[in-house]
């Protein structure tokens, strides 16, 4: 049958063996204006982790679309939130989705959380030439379940564009609107009532939507939330049971106190 992969269960090395490895492109000095996707964030609340993103993609001063899904379920226990160039970020998400499932199916066990975190770091490092040339920069957030704890506990990680990863104690944000978001999250965590970590699901969803509304006032690349126009965010909850999506209908219900 087929030759074994260099590292058992490693999907990227299998792709390399077929010469279809992702993120292996040469950058051109005449690269066009890049599409950008912002803003994403995640924070711990009482029931787990909430990962959120607006749905706007821009190219320079142009709004390209307000229908981008920036918070992506990678597998049943991990979520990627992307800020940066969607072309690269979506390819990273696809590579991770296939890698994690490939490992689980071929090795008959799930990949550990540290290995998942490093898998994304490896993709960011592979993207280093593009990052250094200012083309294809991605600064993602990642949330996954730590199965070494009982019950399994969700954790949030943020990265720099070169692939360094850091665990977020309370929250993390990325993208052009992240300054505003981080400021409010910091304030709420120190002086708010309730603190984000004490919020129930309804409160956490409402808080996340309001964060995006405020961020969009200061950053034109952040799409914000407009219930009157049925424009909502992409929200996913990660708890001990896994990933679930907060639908537009749920957001419409939760946004009002």
């Amino acid at each position, binding site marked *: *049958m*087929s030759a*074994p*992969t260099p590292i058992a269960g490693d*999907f990227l090395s*299998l*792709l390399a063996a*077929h010469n*279809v490895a992702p993120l292996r492109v040469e950058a051109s000095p005449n690269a066009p204006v890049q599409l950008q996707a912002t803003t994403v964030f995640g924070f711990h609340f009482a029931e787990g982790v909430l990962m959120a993103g607006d749905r706007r993609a821009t190219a320079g001063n142009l709004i390209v679309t307000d229908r981008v899904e920036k918070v992506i*379920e990678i*597998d*049943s226990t991990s979520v990627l939130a992307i800020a940066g160039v969607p072309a690269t970020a979506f390819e990273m998400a*696809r*590579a991770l989705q*296939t890698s994690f*499932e*490939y490992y689980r*199916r*071929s090795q*008959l066990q799930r990949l550990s959380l540290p290995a998942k975190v490093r898998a994304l770091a490896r993709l960011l490092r592979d993207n280093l030439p593009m990052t250094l040339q200012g083309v294809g920069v991605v600064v993602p957030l990642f949330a996954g379940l730590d199965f070494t704890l009982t019950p399994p506990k969700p954790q949030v990680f943020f990265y720099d564009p070169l692939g360094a990863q850091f665990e977020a104690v309370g929250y993390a944000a990325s993208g052009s609107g992240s300054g505003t978001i981080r400021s409010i999250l910091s304030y709420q965590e120190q002086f708010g009532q309730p603190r984000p970590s004490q919020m129930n699901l309804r409160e956490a969803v409402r808080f996340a939507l309001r964060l995006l509304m405020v961020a969009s006032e200061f950053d034109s690349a952040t799409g914000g939330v407009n219930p009157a126009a049925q424009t909502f965010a992409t929200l996913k909850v990660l708890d001990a049971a896994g990933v679930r999506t907060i639908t537009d209908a749920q957001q419409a219900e939760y946004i009002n106190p």
Partner: protein
Amino acid sequence: MTEEPYRWLEAVANRREYVREQLKGGSPVFAAALPEGVLLLGVGSGHSKVFELFDRLALAGLGHPADIEKVRQAAIDAAHVEAFTRAPEDVSLRRLISFGLSAQLKANFEQIYAAPFLVELLLIELGIEAGTDAIFRLHFDGAYQLQTGGVGVAASQADSEEECRAWLVRELAGKADRGAVVDLLLQAWWVLTEKRAFGEALPAVAERQAGWRAAVAGKVIEIGWLARRGPRAARYEPLTLAQVGL
């Protein structure tokens, strides 16, 4: 040996006989298409016999664990590369078998100086709607057949396998309860492993049920379930006897 055609034919025939002899004691595996999904079942002694391959694909097999593992790994590799380079929707069991696994197994079987694969396999693709599932029977020599009637059986003896399959097609008709289906598959497993007949001499239900319960002591019953509806692309989940109500 290979310089004369008839010697090559003789060598292949010997090889077929050798493989069948090696597989004689193998524990049969089953697949049954139900309205809500496809159920796979195998009874083993520590080595797994039922596996997830891809979002809607699964495998059950008997034979040498190392050979099952090679086929399983080849199928998983091919399915994931296809899904990544094209799309998960482009991964189909028909293409996986006819252009990949079957050709590789046949080539291996006819290379008479290499060790043959000691496997008999069932490969299953979950359909979008009931009645569209595909159950393929893949043999050690690369030959394969699409199984009709929503039932697949892989056993070491061709005659009893076909008798068993025909009996299961009749018995499973209209059944939707997973517990009842698992019970019937285990009855069939017991009849096959006890080398009983499926005709008029078939033991009564009570004897069959008591038989499988006694025979599985110390063994592992593996049940795989491909769910037709679900929130995620991956539809396979392993089940226990308790989960199906037995």
